[in-house]
């Protein structure tokens, strides 16, 4: 086989020399024969004539000899390719439409698939990542809930002691911004706290140094830290003597014991790791830990799950409490649980666009093939083999496909970086996104298959028909019916898919509109926020925290353009702290508890944000550390907990202290915090306590998770104020890095960034799909116009009005659209149940959305149908008939 290929290509490449050699060989042959004839007594002139005659045509011999080397197919392929290129240039509009459609489908499909694959499906970058799992507790009646995989300190102790055959560790999945200082450098870095054995469970060893030891992972163990490779390079210039050096984290001296390898990531981007020191009390009394285990070699997932389930959970030992079990969730699925749905939604949208694109390509192909039927029939009538015609068509289609493939590659490469940035900004992921070669191949294969399949079907059909019929029919085609039916079916499918996609996009837009128009409950106008980490040894007591708050607020309020300023643990539209509480005098059933968000604020908080105080009084400076502890509840809290009796004066206990409700404030929108509501933002029951009355332990505990914000309401430009506020803070404490300076309106926008991104993405994809479908419809009607021109001319000559003729030609397009719309409605109803999970404030059968989509598609379809149809009206019947 190889030899033959070499022989074929050798012949091809030698081209001229091959012919020259043959010439020489033939000349020798004829000369030798002539000589022999002369030798046998023939006259020399006659001998040469005879020799030539007997030899036959040298040209035929040469061609046949050349083809003997198997070059015929290659020759034909090259010829076909030249035809194909010429054909593309002759019909540039078709070629460009085709290549762009193909490019869009391949490129967008590949880029989005690559993103989804990178974020959701690619194995985690650890050895044997499919053997890693999180241990979760779950109610066997409801099953494991993806995304809910945090456990408390007692659960960790049970797993630590009960699952000894598993490599296991526990970590905090709560990103904490902390202040790092070393020598003269100060930086705000991301810290993660992990237990001893965390890195060895992942099977990633530190690049230099070692990981945490059990003796360091106990309360009041030695303060040690492990650096990320990036931090080591960035802040310490890759100091090879880093192990053993002292750095200050949150003001406390820590000894560096190791540096992780470059590119290592745990569950979120981390600069420095410190020991978790897990405990069943304090932080560990709530579900603030995640337990990582690795399946021992040879153990199946079922076996491992059964072993883990065999360990008694804390709650099952209590009477009446719902039974809970320990179980395993594969690590990758656990970490990506909340991204699964939106990313699959994006992928689904792209797949629909891809299908519409394929249908459109098929439609274009059928139209083109129909137009070429007379040419094909002529060639067949002239004796052209079907094989040769097929080969030529395949070449043309493959050339188009390659053109489209290149366009697709360009789209994918240009799109992937932007998409990566968008996804990393809107989804909680650190995964890098690379173009997936398999996806590219699959998208390319699918579209080219559609191209070929529908490009060739009409040719194959011609074989079955009478060639004479096609030729005698002139411009009309015998197989028009079959081809048109297919094309129309494709169009109905396109309209149906586009309708469903547009409805989905419309619902997401309506959902985003609902979220965006929700009354925030406060006025963000002119409010600047500055976030600082207070998780710092210098602020380990309530007195120190409050002195810092008082001094910075006083400095800020002295500035001329500042109207008022306050400090709050969390901002509206962000995720707040939640705590269980009890109402004094109310007996709740055993095993149940009430939960509310708790925010510490300074007295001017409500004034700064313009949150109305509905009843009672505000927090005052008099509500100091020694005064009775008071709390302001919001209306949602009252509605949920204190509907009976006077709310003011009620007493609540939480965090081990008792508070009196002294005022009721208006509700503000807050991000969901894993309880109460599945909406991205909602007016959650909230308690506001005075920062001045918070205790040492409360501050220390919550400042690990939350960095409080300074809120400044300005009369002038808030942006111009940023520098002077930062300076004021540095006047009070020069070593206080600023974590974030941003407008409150930005914080609000950020909270809705993901629904906005999803809605925008779907709208863009749906718009492209709609464009494709409209192009397809326009093509069908335009084709119909051309084919029925003579018929319409005849009708008009017989007295039909031009309007009637236009109606007759344009109507089928509209009819197809209506059929497509109905099918699309059915599709929307089917997908509605699923889409209901990602929309808020709007039902999946929202009449406004469906109405707008239906009317919009109909209007566009009518335009696409009747614009080409009006061409009929402008025609002169006599001209048309004469042309026939």
């Amino acid at each position, binding site marked *: 086989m190889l030899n033959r290929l070499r022989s074929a290509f050798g012949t091809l490449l030698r081209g001229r020399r091959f012919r020259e050699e*043959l010439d*020489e*060989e033939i000349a020798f042959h004829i000369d030798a024969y002539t000589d022999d004839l002369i030798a046998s007594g023939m006259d020399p002139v006659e001998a040469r004539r005879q020799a030539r005659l007997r030899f*036959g045509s*040298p040209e035929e011999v040469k061609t046949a000899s050349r083809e*003997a*080397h198997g070059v015929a197919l290659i020759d034909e392929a090259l010829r076909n390719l030249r035809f194909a290129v010429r054909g593309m240039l002759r019909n540039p509009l078709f070629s460009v439409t085709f290549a762009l459609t193909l490019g869009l489908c391949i490129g967008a499909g590949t880029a989005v698939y690559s993103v989804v694959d990178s974020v959701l499906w690619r194995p985690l970058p650890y050895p044997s990542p499919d053997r890693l799992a999180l241990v979760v507790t779950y109610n066997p009646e409801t099953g494991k809930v993806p995304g809910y995989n945090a456990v408390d300190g007692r659960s960790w102790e049970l797993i630590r002691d009960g699952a000894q055959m598993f490599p296991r560790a526990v970590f905090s999945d709560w990103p904490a911004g902390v202040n790092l200082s070393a020598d003269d450098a100060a930086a705000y870095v991301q810290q993660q706290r992990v237990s001893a054995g965390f890195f060895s469970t992942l099977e990633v060893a530190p690049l230099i140094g070692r990981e945490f030891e059990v003796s360091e992972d106990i309360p009041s163990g030695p303060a040690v830290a492990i650096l990320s490779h990036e931090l080591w390079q960035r802040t310490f210039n890759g100091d090879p003597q880093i192990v053993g050096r002292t750095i200050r984290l949150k003001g406390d001296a820590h000894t560096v014991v190791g540096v992780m390898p470059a590119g290592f990531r745990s569950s979120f981007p981390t600069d420095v790791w410190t020991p978790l020191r897990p405990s069943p009390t304090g932080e560990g009394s709530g579900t603030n830990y995640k337990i990582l285990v690795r399946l021992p070699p040879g153990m199946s997932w079922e076996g491992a799950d059964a072993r883990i389930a065999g360990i008694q959970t804390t709650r099952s030992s209590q009477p009446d409490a719902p039974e809970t079990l320990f179980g395993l969730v594969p690590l990758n699925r656990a970490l990506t649980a909340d991204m699964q749905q939106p990313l699959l939604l994006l992928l689904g949208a792209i797949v629909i666009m891809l299908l519409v694109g394929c249908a459109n390509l098929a439609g274009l192909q059928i139209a083109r093939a129909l137009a070429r039927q007379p040419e094909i029939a002529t060639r067949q009538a002239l004796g052209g083999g079907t094989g040769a015609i097929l080969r030529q068509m395949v070449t043309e289609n493959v050339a188009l496909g390659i053109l489209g493939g290149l366009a697709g590659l360009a789209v994918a490469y240009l799109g992937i970086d932007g998409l990566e940035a968008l996804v990393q900004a809107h989804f909680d992921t650190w995964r890098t996104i690379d173009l997936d070669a398999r996806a590219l191949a699959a998208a390319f294969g699918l579209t080219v298959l559609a191209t070929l399949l529908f490009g060739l079907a009409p040719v194959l059909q011609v074989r079955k028909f009478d060639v004479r019929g096609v030729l005698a029919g002139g411009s009309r085609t015998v197989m028009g019916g079959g081809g048109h039916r297919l094309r129309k079916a494709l169009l109905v499918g396109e309209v149906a898919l586009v309708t469903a996609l547009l409805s989905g996009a419309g619902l997401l837009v309506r959902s985003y509109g609902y979220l965006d128009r929700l009354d925030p409950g406060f006025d963000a106008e002119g409010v600047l926020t500055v976030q600082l980490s207070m998780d710092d040894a210098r602020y380990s007591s309530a007195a120190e925290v409050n002195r810092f708050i008082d001094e910075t607020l006083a400095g800020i309020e002295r500035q001329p353009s500042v109207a008022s300023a306050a400090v709050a643990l969390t901002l509206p539209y962000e995720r707040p702290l939640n705590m269980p509480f009890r109402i004094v005098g109310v007996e709740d059933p055993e095993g149940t508890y009430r939960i509310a968000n708790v925010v510490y604020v300074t007295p001017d908080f409500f004034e700064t944000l313009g949150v109305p105080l509905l009843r009672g009084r505000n927090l005052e400076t008099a509500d100091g550390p020694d005064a009775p502890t008071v709390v302001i509840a919001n209306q949602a809290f009252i509605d949920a907990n204190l509907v009976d009796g006077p709310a003011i004066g009620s007493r609540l206990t939480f965090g081990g202290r008792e508070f009196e409700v002294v005022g009721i404030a208006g509700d503000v929108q807050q991000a969901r915090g894993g309880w109460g509501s599945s909406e991205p933002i909602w007016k959650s029951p909230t308690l506001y306590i005075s920062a001045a009355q918070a205790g040492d332990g409360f501050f220390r505990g919550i400042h690990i998770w939350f960095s409080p914000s300074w809120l400044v309401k300005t009369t002038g430009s808030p942006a111009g104020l940023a520098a002077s506020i930062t300076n004021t803070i540095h006047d009070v404490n020069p070593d206080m890095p600023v974590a974030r300076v941003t407008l409150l309106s930005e914080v609000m926008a950020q909270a809705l960034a993901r629904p906005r991104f999803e809605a925008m993405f779907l709208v863009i994809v749906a718009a492209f799909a709609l464009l494709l479908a409209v192009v397809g419809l326009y093509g069908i009607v335009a084709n119909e116009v051309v084919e029925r021109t003579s018929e319409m001319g005849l009708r008009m000559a017989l007295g039909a009005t031009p309007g009637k003729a236009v109606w007759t030609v344009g109507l089928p397009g509209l009819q197809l659209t209506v059929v497509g719309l109905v099918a699309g409605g059915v599709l929307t109803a089917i997908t509605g149940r699923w889409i209901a999970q990602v929309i808020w404030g709007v039902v999946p059968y929202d009449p406004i959305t469906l109405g707008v989509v239906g009317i919009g598609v109909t209007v566009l379809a009518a335009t696409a149908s009747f614009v080409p149809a009006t061409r009929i009206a402008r025609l002169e019947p006599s001209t048309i008939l004469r042309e026939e």
Partner: protein
Amino acid sequence: MLITKELLPGTLDMLILKALSLGPNHGYGVLLRIEQTSKGLVSLEQGSLYPALNRLEHRGLIASEWGTSENNRKAKFYSLTPAGTKRLEHEASRWTQMVEAVTNVLDALPMES
């Protein structure tokens, strides 16, 4: 006398291989050799020899080389490759079998059943 077109398909290739098995030769020589060894019963359309030679060369059954002819002219000489030798043996035995089979049938006499 048989002309090229009357030969059974594939026979020409076999004749060329046989001719070359007697020793390397140029195209004209192959032609003469076939006509001579057939005792004048085969008369080839001379041009048809060359596509056949090229086809055999393409299949790796013969090899070619430029050399000098008996009257000192540059000529292309063909020779059998090992694959060609094998093919010739195979074709020849098949041919013999076929001839024998056909002959047997043609020689059959009416028999009492």
